[in-house]
């Protein structure tokens, strides 16, 4: 049987387009997707480098002089508690604040957001903070720069939060109540952010192993068409033996494909896998699942004498599975339903398990994915064994 296996692998290696499809194209796609969507994955944010431009109708000192007479508080104290200016003091040095004349100038100087403060706004806020109420209803406007959307949103929510705290503190102070304790905390799971390159290394690999399945099925059927299969049967090779060889060859080719893809990408992008045994188990069960699918495809083609099955599989099914399983991008971001459907796909399960293993999740967490993949493999083998014509079936 080993000579048959050698034949299969030699044949696959001789098919340049097939090799190109299963090895080079995933690499190209990993690069394209990795570069273009790097901002979608594991982007981190700090206050460092954020910038705010301020447009004011009236200088703060002018306003403070007028208000200090009225409220009987010294000008320095007023300036120290001016809103919104004093809010930025919390943020420390990372934040840069500048004064501009109008929005045009702010856009040119690339501020993330611009605050436009009308005259009398600061006075209103002083009255709010000291007297607890104000007759004025001036309010400032925050303009977000569309070119730096994320930064602008972060500044917006920071200012929002500061105003919120100020409101709570002032209200509690005026009601003679204790200040509020922190109600929440942030808990960091601890792992490194997943880079887009790492994500797509898994995403594309779990997609392209199925192309290997399609090619194998195609190749088998063309052997049948070219009467190679008939001659093999004549040479006393049992039909199921033929199927078994094809399945084994698929396992071999997919393992080679995955080791090359992972090897190249892990070296290139310096990916660190925490749980190697788990990772390899997932890879192995994916290999088996692909082999199961291949044997099923071959059986269907041989039983019904059609080559359409592998074509439709490669043309549509793989694309749909890849899309649903999240190989192109995380579909759950778009619709949670899609994410749940995606978890039913073998590639979606494998993708998820690869990420979990690389992040160091225990084998217990991975076990469900591994079981599903092995289940697909076993199901494929059994169905293929039932369907494959064990007698005859040599006619074109």
């Amino acid at each position, binding site marked *: 049987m080993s000579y048959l296996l050698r034949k299969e692998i030699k044949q696959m290696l001789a098919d340049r*387009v*097939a090799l190109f*499809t299963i090895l080079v*194209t995933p690499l*190209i*796609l990993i690069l*394209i997707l990795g*570069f*273009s*969507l*790097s*901002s979608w994955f*594991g982007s981190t*944010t700090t206050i460092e480098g954020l910038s705010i431009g301020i447009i004011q109708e009236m200088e703060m000192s002018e306003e403070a002089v007028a208000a200090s007479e009225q409220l009987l508080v010294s000008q320095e104290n007023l300036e120290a508690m001016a809103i919104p200016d004093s809010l930025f003091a919390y943020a420390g040095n990372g934040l840069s604040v500048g004064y501009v004349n109008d929005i045009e100038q702010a856009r040119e100087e690339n501020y993330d957001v*611009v605050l436009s403060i009308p005259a009398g706004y600061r006075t*209103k*806020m002083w009255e*709010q903070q000291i007297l607890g*109420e*104000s007759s004025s*209803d001036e309010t*400032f*406007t925050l*303009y*977000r*720069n569309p070119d730096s959307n994320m930064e602008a*949103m*972060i500044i917006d*929510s*920071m200012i*929002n939060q500061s105003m*919120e705290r100020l*409101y*709570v503190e002032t209200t509690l102070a005026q009601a003679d109540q204790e200040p509020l304790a922190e*109600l929440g905390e*942030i808990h960091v*799971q*601890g*792992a490194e*952010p*997943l880079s887009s390159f790492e994500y797509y290394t898994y995403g594309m690999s779990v997609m392209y192993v199925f*192309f290997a399945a*399609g*090619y194998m099925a*195609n190749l088998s059927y*063309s052997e049948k068409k070219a009467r190679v299969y008939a001659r093999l049967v004549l040479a006393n090779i049992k039909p199921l033996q033929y199927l078994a060889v094809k399945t084994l060859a698929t396992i071999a080719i997919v393992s080679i494909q995955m080791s090359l893809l992972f090897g190249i990408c892990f070296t290139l992008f310096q990916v660190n896998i925490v749980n190697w045994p788990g990772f390899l188990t997932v890879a192995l069960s994916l290999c088996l699942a692909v082999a199961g699918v291949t044997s099923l495809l071959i059986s269907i083609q041989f039983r019904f004498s059609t080559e359409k099955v592998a*074509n*439709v599989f490669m043309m*549509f099914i793989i694309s*749909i599975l890849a899309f649903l399983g999240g190989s192109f*991008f995380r579909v759950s*971001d*778009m*619709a949670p*339903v*899609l994410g749940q459907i995606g978890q039913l796909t073998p590639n979606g399960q494998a993708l998820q398990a690869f*990420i*979990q293993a690389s*992040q160091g999740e225990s084998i217990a*967490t991975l076990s469900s994915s591994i079981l599903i993949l092995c289940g697909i493999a076993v199901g494929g083998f059994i169905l293929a064994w039932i369907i494959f014509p064990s007698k005859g079936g040599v006619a074109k």
Partner: protein
Amino acid sequence: MNAVFYQYAREIMRSPFTLVLMLLMTILFSIIIGGSNEGGQNVYVYSEDLTEEDLENRLAELNEIEGLTFLSTSAAEAHRMLSTQEVEGLVEFEESSYRIHVAFEDAPFAYLIQPVIDQYYTHNELEQRTGSETSQYEAYTYEADPMVEGTSFDQSLQSLFGFTLYFSFFTMGFTIMTILELKESRVWNRLILSPTSKTKLYSGHLIVSFLLAYMQIAIVLFVFLNVFNYDFHGGFWKLFLVIIPYLFAIMAFGIFLSGVVNASHQLNGVIPLTASGFAMLGGAFWPLQIVQSDWLLALSYASPITYGLEMMMGATFNNWSFDQFLLPSAVLLFMGLALTGVGIRLMERKSV
């Protein structure tokens, strides 16, 4: 040429499976993606202390905030999503405090979501402490606007257009593949011997593939106009004009690819690859604005989908004037002419 049309008509009637499948898929994907984008960012919340009813009530209150959709989930599912980094973070609710779990340090999620959750909890706390008497809250709010008057970007239309363009690439490729199959089964040789000229044979096949793709797009657009009541911003009929250059260009790509490969079955791998590559570069799956790499943006000019999508958006919500359509359609026509020429030459050079 009529014979070619007749042959296609019979063939489609005999096995309409692929065509119907492609139509259904386009509609399905556009619905799922177009329909789901309206809710804004999804935030998952779970709780181990609160009852399900209590949690749902709180989420309903939080869901009144625009731009965020709060969804409840289980603790196990929450752990899975965090460990696969499917979400950057999620929120755990307790009776009077909350915990934000983030998948890694400095995740933007914490910055964006914490203020919202914090506000919700502090306001509840405040209400309990001071009673719900006159609140000065209004004084502490402000307005937030984008710097420039934005164009009325319509995400659901964009993904509808993106997916129709993407799937029409498949239809086109699949029909052009029949030429290769005819050549491989030697039927082509017999056809050449017949009185039909080669030009007529080629143009017959190409016109059919063009019309099939055109029909596919038309049906999808009509379904979305009449069944799902999409608003095309008054540019519905213009769409039927602006897709012509695009279809011409991808037809040429189909011919070119058929000329490059050695056997028809290789197209099975090459067409999805090219189509997905172009779709990704051209912004069919996501708006090009989120792409940050400069050289990828430069590459997007090579994708016909970029121009097709631009024109479709121009015809609807971007309200382009007539001369704005000229450049993209000129580029597409050029691509089409050049690649048809090269492609047919390549196909003719092969002996089979």
